[in-house]
């Protein structure tokens, strides 16, 4: 194909440059991802929404049941609890991850020894698979921590955190944060090194303390990165699945079942249509959150 740009006669003003005819080849470039997205995301999504109005169990005969599944969901404490748990868990984890990652990033961009080595160490959790991390921590929580608790005479630590219905979620936050901090850390480091050194010099000359510099210069200048981290993190944590499966499998009782887990449980346990209705609701909720975040970030990026 040729790559010459055809300009129509009579439209030779410089401003019309972006109005020129789009090369058809670009559509060809788009095609694979468009096809894949349609086949792997859109079509199954629509099929799922369709089945949420039936009593299908995923196989065999089924019939339409109208809004029955949706009515049942809103009176199902297990589903409502999974929403409560997932949102609570996501908010706490986002806060924990961002505070730790930001402080670590400030430390790792300042003039300290072994900076590169430390950065490498801190990033390692990111490259380990979630389910492996979960099983390793499962062992620590079930065996090592209770032994340590018994040795130190701390009675509430003697039984596994994972077996405590009130505290199991803390263990999940800890492990998820352990895995998620490096990703946020890298983004913060990128943000911090992009701040020009002169502003700090100027602040020094004006007599600002290090703490004031952190608060008045660093924090506002990385605000955009904070927003990115919060959005990416929150989105990821709402889909929490692998780490919870490896740690508690939703237990003890049903205290740590995430939304994704209830949806998949329906897929495996003969509740396909019902959980498709749940997934549809979750999809709507996710779209609403995305719209909210989109409008927020638009404001932020102009800062």
């Amino acid at each position, binding site marked *: 194909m040729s790559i010459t740009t055809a300009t129509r006669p009579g439209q030779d003003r410089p401003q019309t440059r972006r109005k020129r005819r789009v090369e058809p080849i670009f559509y060809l470039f788009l095609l694979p991802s468009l096809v894949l997205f349609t086949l792997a995301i859109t079509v199954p999504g629509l099929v799922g929404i369709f089945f949420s109005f039936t*009593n299908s*169990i*995923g*196989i*065999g*005969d089924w019939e339409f*049941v109208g809004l*029955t*599944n949706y009515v*049942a969901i809103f*009176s*199902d*404490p*297990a589903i409502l609890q999974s929403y409560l748990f997932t949102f609570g868990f996501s908010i706490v984890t986002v806060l924990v991850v961002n505070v730790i990652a930001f402080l670590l990033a400030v430390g790792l961009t300042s003039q300290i020894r072994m900076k590169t080595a430390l950065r490498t160490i801190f990033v390692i959790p990111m490259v380990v698979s979630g389910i492996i991390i979960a099983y390793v921590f499962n062992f620590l*929580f*079930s*065996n090592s921590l*209770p032994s340590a608790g018994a040795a130190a005479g701390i009675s509430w630590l*003697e*039984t*596994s955190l*994972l*077996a*405590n*219905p009130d505290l199991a979620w803390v263990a999940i936050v800890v492990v998820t944060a352990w895995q998620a901090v490096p990703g946020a850390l890298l983004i913060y480091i990128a943000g911090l090194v992009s701040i020009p050194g002169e502003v700090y010099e100027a602040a020094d000359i004006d007599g600002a303390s290090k703490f004031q510099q952190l608060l008045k210069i660093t924090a506002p200048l990385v605000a955009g990165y904070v927003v990115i981290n919060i959005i990416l993190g929150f989105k990821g944590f709402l889909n929490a699945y692998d780490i919870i499966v490896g740690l508690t*499998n*939703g*237990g*003890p*009782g*049903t*205290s740590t*079942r995430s939304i994704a887990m209830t949806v998949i*449980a*329906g*897929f*495996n*346990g*003969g*509740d*396909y*249509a*019902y959980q498709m209705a749940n997934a549809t609701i979750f999809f709507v909720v996710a779209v609403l959150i995305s719209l909210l975040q989109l409008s927020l970030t638009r404001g932020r990026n102009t800062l």
Partner: protein
Amino acid sequence: MSSNLTRTLRMAVLGLCLALLAGLLSGCTGDSGKETIRFTFSKREAIGFMTKLVADYNASQDKTEVVMDTSGVDVVSASFVRGNPPDIALANYNMETARFVQRGALSDLSGTQASTRIRKDLQPLMDQYGSYPGRTSALPYSIMASSVIYNKEIFAAHGIDVPKTWSDLIAACDALKAAGVTPFYATWKDDWTVAQGWFDYSVGGQLDTIDFFHKLSEAGTEVGPDSPASFEKDFQQPVAKMLELAGSYVNKDAASRAYGDGNLAFAQGKAAMYLQGPWAFGEIAKSAPDLQLGTFPLPMTDNPDDLRVRVNVDLAAWIPEGSKHKDAARDFLEYLYQPEVIEAYNKSQLGFTPTIDAAGAPDPRIEGMVEYYEKGQVYQGPSVLVPRTIPIMNHVQALVLGADPAATFRTLDADWARLAFRQ
């Protein structure tokens, strides 16, 4: 000229690529003469045995190549949904498989030789999970009876006899405890161990489970405080006794121990009794091959006539309607049911063979249950009779970890009614 050349060249390369791709794709379909069938089998303890059996079968004939898939029950369910089920399976027969039966996803096996040799008195065990009109959808392959596993050496050392009543049991537990021996080893970290052992033995020993679930199904959306049967009304009493045992007579770290930990600890003699099925014997034997073990039904009432053992169809054979190799699968099915094959399997796993021609002395470790099994003093565990979409295992785990029984059973009643409402 040069641009034309590149153009031709490009077309040629494109054509070549397409040809290669087509070749790759077609390469997937049968190039050998053997018909390949996918055989789902995921009973962890028996994978070694079955792998060898499949290899023997593959070597014995040159029509069919059986490929074993051990990826587990969740993957199987998903494969049905995707329309790509296995060709044949030997799988646990439970509510999960019941769905496939009831919606007609399994093919009729009544014409097979194997189906004529199944003991008729086992039919209620199969019917419990529903049927599809005019079909024999599944055949039992291995029946497991389970009850309390006890360490004969510890019992003998402390002069304790096998308890036949609830009072005997409490007396035995107190005596063991006084002697510094943990009566029961519990592994509550794995919720299924609470469900199949603690919950099922306790409730099944006191309640007619099949009758209860029959009434519950009839009540449907009405299940609640006013229905003829409800979890809240009928389970409180049995579960209170379970919690009495769970509260005073287990290892201190029960909440953080899992099935594997339990097998090891029991093999090391760290407790006198263990609420597990016969599948645990093989695991215990790995670290203590000579340990003297026995079984007895958990006495939950003061009447020795109430003693019963839990049974379940540990494995049933079925062939999905959606299989494209049904004939080859049926040939393999007949092979699996040959007397020497099915009996060798059940002997290796301490199961009971469901065929009429079965013979052979039971293993001494399950001798304690034979009497009850043959007299029909059996029950099905309540945990396997609850549809899987209700997380019963999670709930009973919460019970032993301290959740309020009344509230838990109200939740179960509401879950049951809600399920009846939408299905």
